[in-house]
């Protein structure tokens, strides 16, 4: 884990992995009739840049859903994406994208910017690692010669009770064996989305086909307080409220 941030650092690859930025989610709310002042972008920027700076990483892989698209965006709505790519490059780091389900219209803009896009997955053979967004089924591990699967998409979170019975909610990393893969699920980078409550949502309502209807009770949650702390907790089975 790359410190108290919603990102991973892969030592072998000198790369930061971050998922689900959903830049511009505010626009969707506006179209729903909910006025949403645009405040999230600086926060997303900080979340992505701090780990890059800390590790002096040369590479960042965004694990899908870079921009929150809900139709063909207009010109000013590219502003955030361009600003992000520019700022990352100024730090001597090169961004890449693994394509997610929200990344349809963004392709042409990214190719204009010369950003490498992996679709549907990025396979890091040396580290036996498959990087996917998580909205599709992964390739069989024996074919890609990998044992680790890193995904986003689910926006996992957890609800914990304190001693007085009050509930607290946290974004989490989830790590553990599912079938033939050791799966790591990354929390979202969108301040606007806490995502699925892994202990209060039923298995059939999970978003990713990789997690849907799966037994996650042996997986380990790492609770994240962004910018402050990240902490390993007991296995998921102890959180069935």
């Amino acid at each position, binding site marked *: 884990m790359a410190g108290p941030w919603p990102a991973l650092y892969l030592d072998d690859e000198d790369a930061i992995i971050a998922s689900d930025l959903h830049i*511009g989610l*505010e*626009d969707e*709310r*506006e179209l*729903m*009739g*909910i*006025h*949403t*002042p*645009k*405040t*999230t*972008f*600086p*926060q997303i920027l900080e979340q992505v840049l701090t780990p890059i700076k800390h590790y002096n990483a040369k590479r960042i892989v965004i694990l899908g859903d870079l921009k929150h698209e809900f139709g063909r965006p*207009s010109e*000013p*709505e590219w*502003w*955030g994406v361009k*600003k992000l790519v520019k700022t990352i490059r100024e730090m001597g780091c090169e961004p890449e994208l693994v394509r997610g389900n929200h990344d349809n219209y963004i392709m042409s803009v990214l190719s204009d910017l010369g950003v490498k896009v992996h679709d549907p997955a990025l396979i890091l053979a040396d580290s036996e690692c498959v990087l996917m967004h998580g909205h599709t089924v992964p390739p069989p591990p024996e074919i890609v010669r990998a044992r680790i699967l890193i995904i986003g998409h689910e926006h996992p979170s957890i609800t*914990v*009770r*304190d*001693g*007085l*019975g*009050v*509930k*607290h909610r*946290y974004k989490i990393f989830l790590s553990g064996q599912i079938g033939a893969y050791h799966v790591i699920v990354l929390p979202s980078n969108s*301040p*606007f*989305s*806490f995502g699925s409550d892994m202990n*209060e949502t039923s298995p059939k309502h999970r978003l990713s086909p990789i997690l849907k209807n799966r037994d996650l009770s042996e997986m380990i949650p790492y*609770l994240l*307080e962004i910018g*402050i*702390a990240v*902490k390993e*907790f*007991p296995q998921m089975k*102890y*959180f069935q*409220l």
Partner: protein
Amino acid sequence: MTISTARKEYRREQVLSSLDPLVADWLSQFPDLTPSQKYAIPLILSRTSTLIASPTGSGKTLSAFLGIISELVKLAKQNALEPRVYCIYVSPLRSLNNDIQKNLLQPLRAITMSESANSEGIQEIRVSVRTGDTSAQERAKMLAKSPHILITTPESLAIMITAPKFKNKLIDVRWVIVDEIHEVCSSKRGVHLSVTLERLQNMMSRPICRIGLSATIQPLDDVARFLVGYDGRKERDCVVVDTRFAKPTSITVSSPVEDLIHTSPSISSAELYRRMKDLVTANRTTLIFTNTRAGAERSAFQLSKGGSLNVDELSVHHGSLSRDHRKEVEDRLKEGKMRAVVTSTSLELGIDIGSIDLVIQVGSPKSISRCLQRVGRAGHALDRVSKGVLIATERDDIVENAVIAEQATKGKLDRIYIPKNCLDVLSQHIVGMAVERSQWTASDAFHVIRRSFCYRSLRKDDFLNVLKYLSGGYQSLEGFRVYGKIWYDKVEGTFGRKAKLLRVIYSTNIGTIPDEVTIKVYLLSGKWIGTIDETFLERLSKGDIFLLGGRTYEFRAARGFKAYVVRKEGSKPTVPSWFSDLLPLSFDLGEEIGRFRDDVYQKLLGGLSDPDLSTFISKRTNSDNNAATAISGYFRAQFDFIRTLGLDSFPTNKVIFVEDYRDFENRQNIIFNCTYGRRINDALSRAYAHLVSVELNTGVTTTIRDSGFMLTIPEGSVINPQKLVNILQANQIRPRLLEAIKKTEIVKRRFRHCATRALMMLKHYKGREIRIARRQMNAQLLLPMLESLKDFPILKETYREVIEDVMDVSGAESILADVQNGTRRILIGPKTDVPSPFSHELIASGFSDQVLMMDRKNLLEHLHESVLRRIGNDGR
């Protein structure tokens, strides 16, 4: 003149001769005029704005209309009535109601259809009703054939003044009547109406005569200012007709048993129902008020048992029941066919319900005014005595009832509270103004708004921040697309409509009453026990124990809009009861209870025997023998307890008694005995809890009641109460409270209400409805982000609403200021494992909320530990 009180009561003949002969003829059929008619009719005829305050059923609606009808009849005779609205009658009640039938339509028909009227061949005076239920077809009809008197609601009026065509019917309105003004002015609905009236006035070339109709409340001067507003810097003139105590009332206090400390709850409630049954059978028609809907159902069920009452003659009336059912109950009441009707609050307001012999109030009505309003439903005609019995089974309730009865008889009332400078309501009006005309100068709009009593002290920067918010000006960075409902030109100081659909947005989202989805709660056996809020349901997990209507239940499952529970008597709730549906005790009443405590204490000190003390209480508060004995026993127990501790003071309004109590789980509980009412106690408790939480770096739970509050500190941490009391100064309450309420459930929920009122979150948009759950989720996500914006008005308003309207931060400040200047004092008792009798009911109630000022990293550690502990307890 500004605000003054009517001094002159005119004689009947004088009043009659000032009216048009047709009206005078009709009125002379009555033997005499009511007091409010004798005062008010000449005032209204002289176009003086008037506030009429008198009990329900004293004919004030007719007092307001008679002068107006007279003026309109004069015009009608000269064939000079123009096709436009002369008089607007605004009522908060949507289902209009036989009151209008009786006090406007019937007299008007009688007057204009009389023989002499027919022979003169006068013009028709038209009356129409326009509410949210009025169809487009009916509205079109009103355009073609304009009503002269228009009956409407505050919301429909606000839409009407922006309606492109109908607006033209409102160019010269002469009278506006605001009915049930006491009910309206203490809520945001009233704040909204006060600005609508100023916007309406702003469209006229001459002043509108405003008439307010109020039940018995206090202070009338402020209600009058609320009604008439200001003209520039000057208060507008208004004359107050105060005939509040014209109606004789007799209130007695009763207790089902004479010892409430040692009698089991099941016996005292059995006795309660027996006593109620006796009262019902001894009277012809009885109206019973309970404070909750579930309580109404329970009482009706108990009364129906045993067969002494005919099932057809007993019914329930409350807001959860269908409109048809309620209408039927009202009709049968009016026809005199009911022996008893049990209601929560729904029969409190002005609906004419015929003749009632007795009102029973179960539990405490929590305010003197409300008590008089409810008891006033009995003996409806003015000359008949209103008889009421206040009956309760909880000790604090009985004491409250005793003091209420005493104060009501003395003619003292508690003051109402009028919210001010609400930025969400302001936002809605700015949108309305932008719809009303194409361009406004910001300073003009500011002046119109400031004419309302509720915005008298509105700050210019708050106003400009609302314009900034509405024009989409709150952005963290340049370069993104801006969404605004209005445009605002800072340089020119002008604003106007921007969004194309703004008119539709305005008229489909107008209003101030928060919408809530209520979940019905059932026992597994299928029996309905009450309702909870949808947002509260979301916080419940299987196995949670929570409070509902004073009882504890274990949550089992939810399906659709239903929740299933099992009874769990005697268990401590595991989740805070944020959703308290209880009415708060008024501060003025709380002060009086404190004084009453002091008086009784003096008698105890003087060595008065128990029987003599009972007699003293009974005489002073009109309590029956049981009630007086129960109160004297309760006070005696507290007195003996204080003596054992070696203390020389009793908890009164001047002495706040603080207990340092260790419970069975060895947790420290700091109990403050202070009867200032829930609103002040809520503010004080959270400010203290914030202090403890910061000092000890732990979470603190609060338990809040009208009679005091308690802080519970987790085992392992202890604080010296003296230190706590020394540190918290009056000027620290506000900043601490603002910190303490962040991230609480109440803020999350109130933010949704405010954002909906401010049209930040729309209920209806592009023909679709946005569900509450969806809005609530968005509210929760938006909140932390808005914190980063400076002075975002809707967030500021949410905090204001919570600390000023829900709680009473100013009241809490003045209490601590009194402590600092020595007018009140705080007495700290020794550490003990026995709480004082006055605290028992507080300890028995479930906790209300948690204040958690731990740093975020510590909280994570703390949660980790509690999870590990729980795993350990499971035997692993």
